[in-house]
């Protein structure tokens, strides 16, 4: 158990764990344990999501004083959902070839995978025991000139764990997962780099937010969740959204803040988003405009540096599925800027992680009646015309 406020240590701890898509158990266990002291209960669901609940606390009573906090029309406590993904890019063993070489496939859709991010990388194969291995690259001596700069197909790659075939077959089965073996490390400039530097930092931020929220009374319910299979269509978040928004009244009192990773300006990405300039607050169809506005107001009020990020389509976060789950949820997206996302050298600025946690915690603590009222189904004044009723021969209701 780390000392209170040690966000940086937590970031390294989470980023060092292996959370392959669909088999996030180790990360889920760590997150559950870290959240437990600050929430009422924490559990797991059928998809492997970690879901932690904390009831509203106003003064010393639980749930009382809603009308004071939110106005006379609010009869149920608002519910704030804060989510971050548990998993990291990963592969799955598809076949064991003669010689003990492991053929693999991406977990989930193959489209969009950059094979170059796995070429020549040290990896861990999660078999009966974790095995260290590598995805080899063929040296220039044996490659024809014409193909030296052509990215190989994923089917042509394999993992070598350096054991004989019999030993491999005893330790590895088809369906075992493979993750990059590059634990986090600090760099100059206050940066953290590693295969899950951004993802691990976001989970640490989630714990930090929980820690801050638990330190003061709050009039709304909180649900903090680590979602499974984020790299696979956000399937975990879809199930979570389906549960939280199944009922229209539950959906109406729920708003979600989704933590994600923004692509900062870097070679090959033309963007004005920068590491060290603060978290990004996303604007676009995937985000409820009132929540976007409230986050900016919070950042200004608490003097937290932030950056604006425009998303013309759906964001790459679970907000894309949460917004349309069940009866629909109001969503906001706050992201930590990162370079080289999804690769072994994913890099974030630690100061951005701290600011992100401060921003979201301050927003959550400051949730007030105006925002909540803005998200309720808003009734608009109406009146049936007499003409309609005459025509229909109907008595008005």
């Amino acid at each position, binding site marked *: 158990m780390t000392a209170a406020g040690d966000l940086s240590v937590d970031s390294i701890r989470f980023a060092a764990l292996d959370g392959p898509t669909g088999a996030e158990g180790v990360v889920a266990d760590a997150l559950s344990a870290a959240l437990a002291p600050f929430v009422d209960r924490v559990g797991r669901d059928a998809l492997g999501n970690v879901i932690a609940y904390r009831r509203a606390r106003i003064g010393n009573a639980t749930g009382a004083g809603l009308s004071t906090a939110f106005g006379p029309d609010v009869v149920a406590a608002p519910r704030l959902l804060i989510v971050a993904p548990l998993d990291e890019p990963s592969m799955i063993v598809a076949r064991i070839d003669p010689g003990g070489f492991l053929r693999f496939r991406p977990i989930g859709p193959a489209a969009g995978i950059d094979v170059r991010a796995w070429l020549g990388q040290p990896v861990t194969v999660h078999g009966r025991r974790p095995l260290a291995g590598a995805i080899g690259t063929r040296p220039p001596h044996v490659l024809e000139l014409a193909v030296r700069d052509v990215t190989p197909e994923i089917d042509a790659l394999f993992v070598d764990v350096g054991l004989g075939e019999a030993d491999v077959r005893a330790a590895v089965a088809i369906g075992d997962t493979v993750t990059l073996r590059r634990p986090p490390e600090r760099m100059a400039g206050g940066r953290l780099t590693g295969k899950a530097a951004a993802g691990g930092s976001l989970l640490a931020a989630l714990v930090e937010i929980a820690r801050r929220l638990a330190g003061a009374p709050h009039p709304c319910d909180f649900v903090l969740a680590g979602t499974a299979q984020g790299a696979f269509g956000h399937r975990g978040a879809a199930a*979570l959204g389906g549960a939280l928004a199944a009922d*229209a009244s539950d959906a109406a009192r729920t708003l979600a803040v989704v933590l994600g990773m923004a692509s900062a300006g870097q070679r090959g990405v033309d963007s004005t988003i920068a590491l060290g300039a603060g978290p990004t607050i996303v604007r676009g169809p995937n985000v409820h405009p009132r929540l976007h506005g409230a986050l900016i107001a919070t950042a200004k009020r608490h003097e937290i540096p932030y950056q*604006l990020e425009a998303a*013309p389509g759906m964001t790459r976060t679970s907000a894309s599925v949460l917004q349309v789950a069940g009866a*629909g949820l109001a969503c906001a997206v706050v992201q930590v800027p990162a370079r080289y996302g999804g690769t072994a050298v994913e890099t974030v600025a630690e100061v951005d992680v701290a600011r992100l946690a401060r921003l979201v915690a301050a927003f959550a603590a400051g949730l007030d009646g105006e925002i909540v009222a803005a998200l309720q189904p808003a009734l608009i004044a109406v009146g049936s015309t007499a003409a309609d009723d005459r025509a229909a021969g109907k008595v008005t209701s």
Partner: protein
Amino acid sequence: MSGRNVGDVEPALPYGGDGLDWALLAALSDARGVSGDEGRVRDIVAAAVAPHVDELWTDAIGNLYARKRGDRVAAVATTDLRGVGRPDAGANEPGSPAARSSEPAVPPLMVCAHLDEVGLMVVDIDGDGMARLAAVGGVLGAAVVGQRVRIGADGVVGVVGLPPAHATTDAVRARLPALEELRIDLGVTTRDAALALVQPGDGAIWDTATVDLGPTLLGKAMDDRAGCWALAMLLRSRYPMDIVGVFSVQEEAGTRGAGPAAHRLAPSAAFVLECGTTDDTPKDRDDTPVMRVGDGPAITVMDSSMVADVRLVRHLVATAEREAIRHQIRAPKGGGTDGGKIHLARRGVPTAVVSAPCRYLHGPQALVSKHDLAGMVALVRAALESWSPDIVAPIPFDRPGSPHSLNREVAP
């Protein structure tokens, strides 16, 4: 191959078309409302329908719901479709009994049209004050070069430039640029000056004022303000059963608003009013026009998002024939609508789509025919007035052991 153009259709509008409010359609088409930023359009629609409906509300994603109670359905207590004001302590956790959905006592019919239009978004500002843009929905660079646009809530003027022809080569002119290569010129020269006018995330849309050409209208957002307009016209009548008109959001960004709306309402059936693309202008292959402007409202049997419920299709066709409304069947080629999400809500919703044919969709100058629009309103109104729950009664089958006589009439 189209051998007939809209000018050849009789100019007078049958089906009682005189009561239709074309000015409202023009106002709706002119209003700026790119996916995610539909507020202005929603306001115009709300003001137009408010005098005619019993309940009007919005939800968290921005859909507008207009409820019209039926006049033949007995007044029973209906649950709160809006979904507010029900204190359910313990309803936090998924899986708890209180979290299971309870459905309205009397499932209404849902009639849906989408408020949003395709357009652009300002994503960043360069150092020289030019704005980078991205598409919201399906927009190609071809529809954007050389166009004037209006940006943000205030409608700031911008232009997407095109160099004069004499300054370009054949090779350059032969290529249509991708959106990422284009910039909006706001008339300023620095980033700070630009940020005083627009913000990243602002929507941008063509500066087109609707023109009434007589038998047709030319505007920028007939898709789907024509559908919204038709729904507004329909909400002026009363029907035997409850109707909820849903003006949905973000259809063009992936049919996002309609799914949650259908989940919330759990309707007994749904009709989607769309504006559909035609391929009825001259081309060199004898292939489908998908639908034709001037041939009346088009009924979908299948598109890429949905197989239309065959019972609703039969009801629409029978209604059209009975009321002598010229109509057409949309060829099952591509295309997706809100119906794609509506029909899969909860246990499934029998859904049909009626479209007004439109030329030059997803561009700054889209063309629709008043005859087709009047026909769409007349057809759907008559279909709703002659609605019966038996139309979507469960498909019968025989229990094992009883004489084999499956009712093939209603089996899809």
